[in-house]
């Protein structure tokens, strides 16, 4: 790389421009916006998992000094659109899950609100509930979705005469666990609703809230300059925001604040569905795949269908004459599932990449060579060429950096004191998504800087910095000459940055806007010159299959006495096109890998079947990997030039780090112990139980 390129804004190693504001506390998050005389909302939640509210006595609460209002379904606060059951807050006495909003107290302080909430008597009539996902659930159905079932070739024939792997994997109900809870500050004044919101999309909140409350979009102003993590849980509007707006309407002219407690986030903030996944692989003796089938069962709310395309990556990861996938849902009395950290690929690739490892073991073929052997020259299902596909390069380069060569594939052979040691590998992939329709505004200011405005978001990933770099690159000016504005509906429209499409979509938009600006105003504009424009369509989008790829390597140690798993080393090597900012990119990738470690070893929302209740409702019970769990962790990327994906040549990286990393750890645990734990998380009790069973058989 020449110096001339290295010093360009795109690709420069720039520290976070908002870093000083964050570490000094000057960055303002939703709850902290200074407003005069706010009131506080405290939600009342159902304790039945299914049934109805048959009586509410709020008299005592209403008499408590400082209580401004008690909201219940009698009378139901008016909504214009109640078609989404999750957002039809307080519209009926029906209870669809334990922890649903069945009322709220609006009070002068949070403490008074909490006190009053305890004084409201809610009588519920419970009906029989079911919160347990199982393959033979009588209500299992095939969701109405184009890609629910796919069949390419004759999969059953490919599995004959001998299916080499037939294994069922499960991943538990998981929770996004953002540090900042779901928070809304709402203020009605005249005909305008102002929201300070912890969200992944200000324009998404505007659209949804306007629909639900029957407002014009312009009547809803949403601000979210800083967000303390979302991981999908703040990608869509949930009931808490609707409740905050209702509460604000009850005290017009006064701002109301609603921050869910950690416990409330677990039921109201959405979650990842548990999955049961059966993967079958048929292969010839040399490891050539003949057939892949991937059948998935997940849950959804009984009153709303939500589906993740969990087997999506199985349709494109490896070459096989026949590939078939199915998805089935069991409707249960559970909170509403939604997006979480690579919603489909994270659980789906866990199963597929473990199955590939099982195939390698069964065929006595190196796990990397097996993957390379089955690398498809074109998208196996659509037949489209890859815009770029460098899984093989990631595997090879990763193997070299990790020291894979000479690895003895036999399990349970390496012992270091009390520890059994092992290594594992897994592939990763994530689609290059592009959400069209965003706009950006470029204005040349009197101070010589370009103000670049777009309703983009920084959910903690570094957008304030990386998007400013893109803008500088697009305009051909140094970074210092860009003044970026994001995180507000006052700025030009932008789509929700789901699917790791943030930088890619916003960046393409900025490139389009910069070009339009230069076309109109040239390289020497006058102060006040401005243009609002979007990105032109990308003609390559339909011609190519576009995906990012990666290879995960993990070293684990398992305590031979207790089954405790430690991960001293993780390495990910990725093919992600052009990197906008190596510092924030690395941070996102190792963050994703840490989530993968967490998924492999820790995270599980436990539901009590009898109560229909989540019992892991705090961060002491719902474990997410902490610092001590993460050892030597590193992310690297190959030089990849993809001329087709977009003007910058970038691929999304937000979710790639988690995809496959749990499988690499699970495969390493097998290598260390000889025990294949197919049900995540891999906790000490599962290894110990398997060991006791193994030694009982021996």
């Amino acid at each position: 790389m020449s110096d001339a390129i290295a010093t360009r804004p795109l690709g420069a190693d720039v520290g976070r421009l908002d870093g000083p504001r964050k570490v000094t506390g000057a960055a303002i998050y939703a709850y902290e916006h200074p407003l005069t005389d706010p009131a506080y909302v405290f939600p009342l939640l159902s304790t039945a998992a299914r049934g109805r509210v048959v009586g509410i006595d709020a008299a005592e609460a209403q008499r408590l000094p400082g209580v401004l209002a008690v909201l219940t379904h009698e009378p139901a606060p008016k909504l214009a659109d109640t078609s989404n059951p999750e957002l039809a807050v307080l519209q009926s006495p029906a209870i669809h899950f334990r922890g649903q909003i069945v009322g709220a107290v609006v009070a002068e302080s949070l403490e008074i609100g909490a006190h009053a909430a305890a004084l409201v008597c809610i009588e519920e009539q419970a009906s029989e509930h079911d919160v347990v996902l199982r393959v033979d659930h009588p209500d299992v159905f095939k969701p109405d979705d184009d890609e629910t079932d796919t069949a390419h070739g004759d999969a059953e024939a490919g599995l004959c005469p001998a299916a080499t792997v037939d294994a069922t994997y499960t991943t538990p109900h998981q929770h996004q666990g953002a540090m900042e809870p779901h928070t809304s500050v709402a203020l009605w004044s005249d005909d305008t609703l102002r929201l300070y919101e912890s969200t992944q999309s200000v324009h998404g909140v505007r659209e949804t809230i306007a629909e639900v409350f029957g407002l014009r979009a312009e009547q809803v102003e949403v601000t979210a300059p800083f967000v303390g993590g979302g991981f999908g849980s703040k990608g869509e509007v949930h009931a808490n925001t609707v409740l905050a707006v209702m509460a604000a309407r009850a005290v017009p002219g006064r701002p109301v604040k609603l921050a869910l407690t950690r416990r409330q986030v677990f039921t109201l903030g959405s979650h990842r569905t548990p999955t049961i996944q059966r993967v079958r692989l048929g292969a010839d003796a040399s490891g050539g795949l003949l057939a892949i089938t991937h059948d998935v069962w997940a849950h959804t709310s009984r009153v709303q269908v939500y589906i993740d395309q969990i087997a999506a990556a199985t349709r494109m990861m490896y070459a096989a004459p026949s590939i078939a996938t199915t998805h089935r849902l069991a409707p249960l009395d559970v909170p509403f599932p939604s997006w979480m950290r690579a919603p489909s690929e994270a659980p789906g690739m866990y199963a597929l990449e473990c199955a590939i490892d099982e195939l390698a073991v069964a065929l006595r073929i190196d796990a990397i060579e097996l993957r390379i052997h089955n690398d498809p020259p074109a998208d196996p299902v659509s037949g489209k060429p890859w815009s770029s596909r460098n899984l093989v390069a990631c595997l090879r380069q990763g193997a070299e950096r990790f020291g894979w060569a000479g690895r003895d594939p036999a399990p349970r052979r390496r012992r270091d004191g009390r520890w059994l040691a092992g290594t594992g590998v897994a592939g990763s992939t994530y689609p290059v998504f592009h959400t069209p329709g965003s706009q950006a505004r470029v204005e040349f200011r009197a101070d010589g800087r370009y103000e670049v405005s777009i309703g983009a978001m920084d959910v903690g990933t570094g957008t304030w910095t990386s998007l400013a770099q893109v803008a500088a690159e697009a305009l051909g000016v140094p970074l210092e000459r860009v003044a970026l504005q994001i995180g507000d509906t006052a700025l030009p429209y932008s789509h929700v940055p789901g699917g790791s499409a943030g930088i890619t979509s916003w960046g393409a938009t900025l490139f389009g806007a910069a070009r339009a600006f230069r076309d109109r105003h040239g390289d020497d504009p006058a102060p006040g010159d401005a243009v609002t424009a979007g990105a032109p369509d990308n003609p390559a989008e339909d011609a190519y299959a576009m995906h990012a790829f990666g290879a995960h390597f993990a070293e684990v140690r398992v305590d031979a006495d207790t089954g405790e798993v430690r991960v001293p080393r993780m390495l990910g090597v990725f093919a992600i096109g052009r990197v906008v900012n190596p510092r924030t990119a690395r941070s996102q990738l190792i963050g994703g890998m840490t989530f993968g470690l967490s998924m492999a070893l820790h995270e599980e929302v436990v539901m009590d079947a009898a109560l229909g209740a989540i019992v892991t409702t705090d961060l002491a019970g719902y474990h997410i990997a902490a610092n001590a769990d993460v050892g030597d962790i590193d992310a690297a990327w190959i030089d990849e030039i993809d001329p087709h994906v977009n003007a910058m040549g970038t691929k999304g990286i937000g979710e790639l780090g988690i995809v496959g990393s749990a499988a690499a750890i699970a495969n390493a645990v097998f290598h260390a112990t000889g025990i294949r734990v197919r049900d995540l998380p891999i906790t000490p009790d599962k290894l110990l139980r398997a060991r006791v069973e193994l030694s009982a058989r021996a």
Partner: protein
Amino acid sequence: MKPFEYERAADTGGAVAALAGRRGAAYLAGGTNLVDHMKLGIASPELLVDVSRALDARIEELPGGGLRIGAGVRNADLAADMRVRKRYPALARALLSGASGQLRNLATTGGNLLQRTRCPYFQDPTTPCNKREPGSGCSALDGHTRQHAILGASQHCVATHPSDMAVAMLAFDAVVRVRGAGGLREIAIADLHRLPGDVPQRDTTLEHGELITDVDLPSLEIAARSTYRKVRDRASYAFALVSVAAAVELASDDTFADVRIAFGGLAHKPWRATLAEDELRGRPATEAAFRAAAHAELAAAQPLRDNAFKIAMASNALVATLRELTMPRAAR
């Protein structure tokens, strides 16, 4: 959260007087457990008597070689004390394996002993729980019991005690000094925590209004060769699935001259493994003897639906701990 009164006690006498006769009053020290409970709606004291300034925060030598730990000594300070680290290493390790740095900076010695179970049903006031609401039933019995007791439980309560520190103190026969309306009394730590029986709402034998003022660690040579092993789901910041505090003294022929063993995570109280100790005294330090000792203690275990693994885990953890402690110095 219900409104409450707050008073700051100047000394322990004043604190005890403030609580005497007020059933709805509670002491507040580090607040790391009680304040959570107030937010969750598990505890709603009418009066908080803040003893954080009244309690002794010093660690002093006792005549004869023991240590007196003021009840106000923060967990972080106790773990860092050189005398504790040298003479009672299992205690320092137990402290450091608990909670997080931030919590250890606040939590006190007295409060740590009195922290309440992390049973998720106890912590959720919308579920039945005999400990929180006597007679309402035990949700855990048919529920999620991975963290629950396998020893000494009753049909009324299967909760476990969460403290690490108390497990090590139990192995060392600490003495808890308590001040009440009637004056001072001393309680052997083995008699402080109780089994649930049919009164699961009572965690300890303290009477209402009694205040822990100090914990005495006796002079104990064996304690210098001790350790604490905590088995948990995460490398840090997780409660024990199983933990072991152990101290050994080997005779010149490598038989056990003395041994101290206590378990955490197995019962409603820190569990002194007297059966295992009896099994080991006088026996040679062999793997077979360690196994036999574990078996002697755990034979009475009654696992629930999700926690049968604790028997193997406790047994293995004890064997591994004894192996480590009895390994010749050169091999360690």
